[in-house]
């Protein structure tokens, strides 16, 4: 019998098909995400194992806080953590303090030559292209002669030099979003540049400032090349501490997992928080330009 289907039947079969498709898609997406994230997940879990349990890879274990406690009470780890926090806070703050006024006058400022704004902006961009290897050798020799590798300030100024261009680059697109009219109006009302910067540009571009600050914080937190080569034992940062585990073939897995969890957690959490504005800052100038 060739029976024509009612509208309800057609709708129901379509709905079932859609549910089926969505569940297959979800399964694939979840599987991909979990496989991709597996090393980090396993690392996180292994931190709760005792050293004896961690020898064999497995998901079955009795969770204990013993390893985290051991790692956190290690005075070495404490020193590296303190150095990292210092570099991140001071480096990010100073990069923003230097970068924000620069980005602001590059958008709204008037220089003697009109094309100066564009030229200075491009100069900042090209310094981003410079790999750190280009500066390593002179900095290394200076730091050795003047003992700058024994004080955290040495690494700090290197980080500021490398991250100010990134701040300028990201903030430039956020500051450009501020309407020119309100700046002109404030100028007629007698605002100085300083007032414009502090009371108008900074509040209006605050999402951009937060986003670029967090991005720079993540970059400094993870930076290894300069941190490794321009520091001594007392000033080294967490990535250098993590690199020390490279010689231990399969030993202290639990300790390694707990330390790396502590080392990566701040950056991963900050990164997740900033992902939206990160895309905007990274692509806006480049995609439209």
């Amino acid at each position, binding site marked *: 019998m060739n029976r024509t289907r009612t509208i309800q039947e057609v709708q129901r079969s379509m709905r079932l098909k859609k549910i089926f498709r969505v569940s297959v898609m979800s399964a694939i*997406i979840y599987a991909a*995400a979990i496989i991709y*994230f597996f090393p980090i997940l396993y690392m996180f879990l292994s931190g709760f194992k005792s050293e004896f349990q961690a020898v064999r890879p497995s998901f079955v274990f009795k969770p204990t806080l013993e390893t985290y406690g051991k790692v956190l009470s290690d005075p070495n780890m404490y020193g590296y953590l303190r150095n990292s926090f210092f570099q991140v806070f001071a480096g990010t703050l100073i990069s923003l303090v230097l970068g924000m006024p*620069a980005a602001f*006058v590059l958008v709204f*400022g008037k220089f003697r030559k009109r094309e100066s704004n564009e030229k200075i902006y491009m100069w900042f961009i090209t310094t981003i292209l410079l790999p750190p290897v280009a*500066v390593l050798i002179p900095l290394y020799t200076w730091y050795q002669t003047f003992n700058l590798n024994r004080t955290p300030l040495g690494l700090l100024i290197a980080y500021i030099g490398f991250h100010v261009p990134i701040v300028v680059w990201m903030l430039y697109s956020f500051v450009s979003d501020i309407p020119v009219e309100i700046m002109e109006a404030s100028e007629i009302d007698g605002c100085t540049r300083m007032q414009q910067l502090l009371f108008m540009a900074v509040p209006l571009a605050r999402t951009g400032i937060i986003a670029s600050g967090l991005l720079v914080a993540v970059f400094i937190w993870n930076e290894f090349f300069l941190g490794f080569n321009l520091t001594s034992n007392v000033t080294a940062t967490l990535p250098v501490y993590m690199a020390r*585990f490279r010689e231990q073939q399969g030993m202290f897995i639990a300790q390694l997992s707990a330390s790396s969890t502590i080392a990566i957690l701040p950056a991963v959490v900050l990164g997740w928080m900033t992902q939206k504005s990160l895309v905007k800052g990274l692509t806006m100038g480049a*995609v439209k330009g």
Partner: protein
Amino acid sequence: MKKKHDWVFVLPAILVVAVMTQVPFILTIVYSTLRWNLARPDMPIKFAGIDNYLYFMRIENWKEIPEFYSIVWQTVMITGLTLAICTITGFLMSLLLDTTVPGVNFARTLILGPFFVMSTASGVIWKTTILNTTFGWYGVIAKALGFTSVDLLSYYPIPVIIFLFVWQWMPFFVLVILAGLQGISFDLIDSMRIDGVNWFQATFLIKLPMITNHIRVAVMLGLIFIVKEFGLILVTTAGGPGTRSYTLPYAVYMEVFNASNVGRASALATMTVAMTLIAVNMLYRSLKKRSAI
């Protein structure tokens, strides 16, 4: 007017950046012409012309091509293959994630994770908990399946390094490409559906050309960041076995810290920078040309 004051706002930034990046770079170029060995304080520092460059580049005997060329080749291969694989898998992953199934945001967040992990931590994690032949998942699974596990890091150093780079950098490509895909308007997607465009056409003939700019940005930034990767190589293979997984930044590091030869290291660093800038420039132009058509 207040024209003069505007300089004051940008000057500190310019000064710091110039002193910490441009001046050292110029000094690197100067050093590269000097015979200067930190381990030999008895030998005076003196001008050596292009000797340091010749030391790496001169080919005396065609049967033994200097190590420098293989290091350059390894760097090009690692960077190029990483970028290519990141672009392809990143695009496919973005297509997968450009849907509206429940929980897709959580999946996106998980996939983004590795990008924010410091390279030394991801190196030691992969090396000890996964790739290790006795204590890692790889060893255990291989044993359970009846294979004898070979030490991947010493037999296939470059493929493993590329794999780890891709693991770390693909999320960044997904981040940028996904932003491009989500910028495509719903009207367009609706009209594609009405016109009966199939999946293949929709993806590769319509969506892909629309996001070339995003891919270009991802590849450019990826190139800039991946060329300077150093920590991962140091912790996983330490350049070995021998020099088989050296890259140029790693070779510079070894030349300063092991050989203490400032002159030669500077020559290598200068060549690294020159090659990076040439690559970025070429990439930029070729991609720009293509997107103009």
